[in-house]
């Protein structure tokens, strides 16, 4: 023990015992506070941090056990030593009552100075160690929290649309941080490099390696001539990095691909990673992009591994090809904690085929994760990621408005105006343009202001998709990763009409809430898909709602 004085609180309704214990500990490393009733002891306990409490059991008003309950409301772990006439009183029920609390001990009232000091020393050291462990746990927890934020910040946005292609992904660490890697690096507006990886192990070790790989990949693309980038070359460089710089302390399965959305050409190299799953969007039909099973070893496994160019897979794809990449953690999602079999590949492909043709591609990773959960696969055993990538057809802008929106008011303002223009000029539904703009302005601002509690990320995005609904309507789909939206009761229709007319006069600002949104779009559906909120608004002409025919 060091020179520190430890605070000990002694409770006994006999003054003689209090004086004896205080005198006995006078020369030790303890600062003693005495109390002859539980009320005074509790008041003292609330004022100072004590390292141990010594208490009699049988007392006139509040007994020792009740006093222990009282202090446990303030401190769950401070050690309590009960002083008892051990030889005379102790029996199983008394021991059980003492030991019901994990931080309680007992000492014979016939104690000696040595036995008292030994007991105090033991419990105070244990308590100190527990406090240190607890502080360490808090520190680790906070470090992990920071690591999670850093890792998330290094990932691409969960959804991204360019003029030529889009991707979205779900990223599920088993515990806070993950060794799964998804890196997207645009090379030109129509070409991009994507790397999907899975570093061996879990947690901090693999997350650190993942971060290193991400920075190496960024360096490679900056240093090298974009035309010289080739999957096999990148893999050789990654293998060197793992073997030489990381000293082969971990390895990584990965799939490195370069997509060219102008030429509809993909060249990729699979290094021990689950192969790409490819589907036709229109039919949901799947096809095997790599029937000859070309591929190489994971990087970092063998210093001499070659990753020959001949093992690159080259694929010409159609405009409607949907690429689905994932890590093998996907197959390890079980139906219960001891489930060794995991997800059946065929079942997953069937789910994916059905989901591809019936839904927006952008939702696919979340929809598939939700579908797996729905059929019982709700217990992940490993980190898993699911990424979808697809070309955007040049004609898609004629019927579909898609944007990812950063969470800031200026961006929302721009997008709502663009959306209004799309409804007015492209869909030729002039009279719904204003409603669309007001609705979006209201709803998106609500998400930004109130709905982002879960993700807590200001860098997060919202995806927006607008298209015609039947003949005279507009379907607006908003995908966000914030809090679930809870609908409130309607206000009266008169109030809503008044609010709407005020709005029309003053033009949209923001934040007037759900009743107005309900008024603008009486048909609203809302679903939660594994971390993604999907809200669909159907905005229709008033005559369409009431069943009147257009003139």
């Amino acid at each position, binding site marked *: 023990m060091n020179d520190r004085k430890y605070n000990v609180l002694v409770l006994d309704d*006999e003054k*003689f015992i209090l004086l004896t214990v205080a*005198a*006995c500990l006078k020369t030790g490393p303890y600062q003693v506070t005495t109390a002859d009733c539980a009320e005074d002891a509790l008041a003292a306990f609330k004022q100072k941090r004590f390292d141990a409490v010594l208490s*009699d059991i049988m007392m006139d008003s509040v007994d020792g056990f009740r006093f222990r309950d009282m202090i446990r409301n303030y401190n769950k772990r401070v050690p309590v030593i009960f002083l008892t*006439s051990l030889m*005379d009183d102790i029996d199983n029920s008394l021991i059980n009552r003492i030991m019901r609390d994990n931080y309680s001990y007992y000492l014979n*009232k016939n104690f000696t100075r040595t036995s008292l000091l030994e007991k105090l020393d033991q419990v105070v050291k244990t308590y100190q160690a527990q406090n240190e462990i607890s502080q360490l746990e808090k520190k680790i927890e906070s470090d992990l929290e920071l690591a999670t934020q850093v890792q998330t910040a290094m990932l691409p946005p969960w959804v991204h649309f360019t003029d030529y292609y889009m991707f979205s992904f779900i990223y599920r660490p088993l515990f806070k941080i993950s060794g799964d890697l998804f890196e997207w690096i645009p090379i030109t507006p129509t070409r991009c490099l994507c790397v999907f990886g899975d570093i061996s192990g879990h947690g901090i070790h693999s997350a650190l390696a993942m971060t290193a790989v991400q920075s190496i990949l960024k360096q490679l693309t900056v240093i090298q001539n974009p035309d010289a980038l080739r999957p096999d070359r990148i893999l050789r460089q990654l293998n060197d990095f793992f073997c030489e710089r990381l000293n082969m302390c971990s390895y990584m399965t990965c799939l490195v691909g370069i997509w060219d959305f102008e030429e509809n050409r993909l060249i990729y190299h699979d290094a021990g990673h689950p192969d790409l799953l490819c589907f036709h969007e229109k039919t949901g039909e799947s096809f095997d992009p790599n029937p000859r099973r070309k591929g190489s070893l994971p990087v970092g496994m063998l210093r001499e591994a070659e990753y020959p160019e001949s093992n690159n897979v080259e694929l010409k794809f159609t405009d409607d090809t949907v690429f689905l990449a994932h890590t093998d953690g996907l197959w390890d999602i079980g139906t219960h904690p001891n489930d060794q079999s995991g997800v059946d590949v065929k079942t997953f492909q069937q789910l994916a085929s059905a989901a591809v043709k019936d839904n927006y591609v952008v939702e696919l990773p979340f929809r598939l994760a939700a579908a797996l959960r729905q059929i019982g696969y709700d217990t992940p055993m490993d980190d898993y990621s699911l990424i979808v990538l697809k070309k955007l057809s040049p004609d898609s802008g004629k019927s579909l408005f898609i944007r990812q929106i950063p969470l800031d008011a200026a961006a929302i303002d721009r997008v709502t105006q663009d959306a209004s223009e799309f409804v007015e000029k492209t869909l030729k539904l002039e009279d719904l343009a204003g409603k669309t703009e007001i609705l979006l302005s209201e709803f998106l601002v609500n998400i930004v202001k109130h709905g982002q509690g879960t993700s807590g990320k200001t860098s997060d995005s919202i995806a927006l998709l607008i298209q015609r609904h039947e003949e005279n309507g507009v379907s607006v789909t908003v995908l966000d990763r914030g809090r679930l939206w809870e609908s409130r009761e309607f206000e009266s229709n008169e109030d809503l009409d008044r609010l709407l007319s005020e709005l029309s006069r003053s033009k949209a600002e923001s934040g007037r809430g759900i009743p107005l949104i309900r008024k603008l779009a009486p048909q609203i559906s809302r679903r939660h898909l594994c971390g993604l909120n999907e809200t669909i608004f159907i905005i229709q002409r008033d005559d369409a709602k009431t069943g009147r025919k257009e003139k």
Partner: protein
Amino acid sequence: MKEMFSAYLAKTLGIDDPDIQAELIAEYRRTFMETVGQMKLAEQASDFERLRRLGHTLKGCALNIGHAEAREYSLGLENCAKENDLAGCGAEIEKLSALAAELE
């Protein structure tokens, strides 16, 4: 008896300051007298629960100062009180009263 208590306090509890020893012995004596007085009242009222508690209390104090006889009679009182044995309680209180006289 005072010497016996002083020796116990010094040897067993490491309390060798004569002033503190004197204070503790005086407090023990006061507690002893007061408790025996309360025991007699409880005996007259046949209040066995009170007798048991008083026996328990004095036993604890006696243990802390090395007063073996007091501890023995207090334990005897506690046990008799648990069995609602009024005569037994009276006998133990008598013995404790005799010890109280010695303490004076």
